């Protein structure tokens, strides 16, 4: 732990000193302390919290939409052979398109407002959830399926008692990936469609005004939020799959 902190602390100190002593242009490299002060000021004056909340709300809206759709579609692909044959190739083909390439099309169809952003984030979340759900459903053990047949489970029972529980770990992996993908997508949409509040908009604004401290503050927030989302997803995953080892 102490070793892990050494390098970051040295770098921070070097950064602070380089800037304070004039070794680096403070416009390009503002002192670390100034970035934090900027954060403090932005918190009270520039509605930093409002911007953060706007980004997070957008992120969660797109994420939930994409995840829900992804779960349904992934289940269809995983459990229905016909569904997989008809729709699988189209999905796997469209999946190849690098995610940001959707942005121009979406902004032409849905404008550059909130709706367009949420649609884009949903697409980003959709893909990993479909892939993992499909794989999880396919991986259900033959024996369990057999047991279900012996117990004459109906369709719903098979889904909720056999397929969903055995696919759950894979689904959770998909959701965790979707959480990361949708955060990246949130930043992406906010960079491309700069209308409305959001952390991405804040960073772009900082760059346009050449205020490096605001840019760095924004990136710091991106990192912290990304880390927090990942931690939450990881924890949730462990809690939900606890039955596996029990």
């Amino acid at each position, binding site marked *: 732990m102490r070793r892990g902190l050494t390098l970051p602390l040295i770098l921070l100190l070097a950064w602070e000193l380089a800037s304070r002593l004039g070794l680096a242009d403070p416009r390009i490299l503002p002192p670390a302390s100034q970035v934090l002060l900027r954060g403090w000021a932005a918190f009270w004056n520039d509605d930093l919290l409002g911007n953060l909340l706007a980004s997070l709300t957008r992120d969660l809206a797109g994420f939930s939409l994409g995840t829900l759709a992804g779960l349904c579609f992934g289940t269809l692909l995983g459990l*229905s052979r016909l569904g997989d*044959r008809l729709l699988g190739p189209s999905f796997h083909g469209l999946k190849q398109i690098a995610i*940001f390439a959707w942005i121009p099309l979406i902004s032409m169809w849905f404008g550059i407002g909130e709706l367009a952003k949420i649609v884009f984030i949903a697409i980003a979340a959709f893909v990993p959830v479909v892939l993992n759900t499909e794989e999880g459903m396919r991986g259900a053990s033959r024996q369990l399926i057999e047991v279900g047949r012996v117990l004459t489970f109906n369709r719903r029972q098979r889904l909720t008692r056999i397929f969903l529980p055995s696919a759950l770990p894979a689904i959770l992996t998909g959701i965790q990936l979707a959480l990361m993908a949708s955060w*990246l997508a949130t930043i992406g949409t906010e960079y491309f469609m700069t209308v409305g509040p959001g952390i991405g908009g804040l960073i772009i604004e900082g*760059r346009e005004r050449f205020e490096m401290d605001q840019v760095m503050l924004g990136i710091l927030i991106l990192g912290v939020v990304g880390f927090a989302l990942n931690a939450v997803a990881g924890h949730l995953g462990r809690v939900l799959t606890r039955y596996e080892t029990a």
Partner: protein
Amino acid sequence: MRIVTDISMTAALGAFRTQAPRTRARGWVRLVVTALAGFIVPLLALLLWQVSASRDWLPQQILPPPDMVWQSFVDMVKSGELLGHIEISLQRVVEGFALGAVIGLTLGFSIGLSPILDDYLSPLITAFAQVPTLGWVPLLMILLGIDEGLKVAIIAIAAFIPMVINTRAAVRAVPQGLLEVARCFMYTRRQQLLRVVLPASVPTIFTGIRYGLTHAWKALVGVELLASAEGLGYLLVWGRQMFWLDMVLLAMAVIGVLGFAMDYGLARIERRLQRWRIGPLGDPS
């Protein structure tokens, strides 16, 4: 098998399914049918698209007719314009990916092999990886301008992260038993690396390389959308600004096909490498 298929959603699908077992087609026939089934939905979509275009259900700026998209594709290929953009994009990806790979693999190996280095560097790398790649664009714009340097740097960052993480994990997961055998044979450090660590960690490292390339391609499109005057991403932006949706659609298609081709290429190399891997591990010489 029956139960799995029983879950399919509608009665119509059900009717189709019950016929399937009766016509027990030979293997390759079934393969062709399976392949053809994948075209049904795209063809229906194309048909709907064509009908909607010929009936003017939607304005051309929202959905240009399919033949218009095809025509602009042909035009752009003939004029060599498309190839020029592709070349520039590919060059950027190759440069950025190579840079990211060199740094990522070296760093990954170093921290995988040395626990002390790992203690010092890992938290920093983890922290660095938390920021979405595209997040760095505005910062690097101030530092590097909006020229090639920016694009290559962003692509390198995108490629670097999965490679360093996977390489570290791969090296650490080398079975202790193998290392013990190597020590018994009094392998030198170099021999241990080349004969044991490297072959045993290749599969996981390769996963990292594939992720790295996928991420690099994604980042290329992102950074070209934000700041570029050439390349496939720029084609998208330009098409959007001029409201030429045909250009946007064809650029998307090219991006998809190239992305697939690169990943497919790596997958084939991966399979080759796996075969090679058996040699050094099994060969006692």
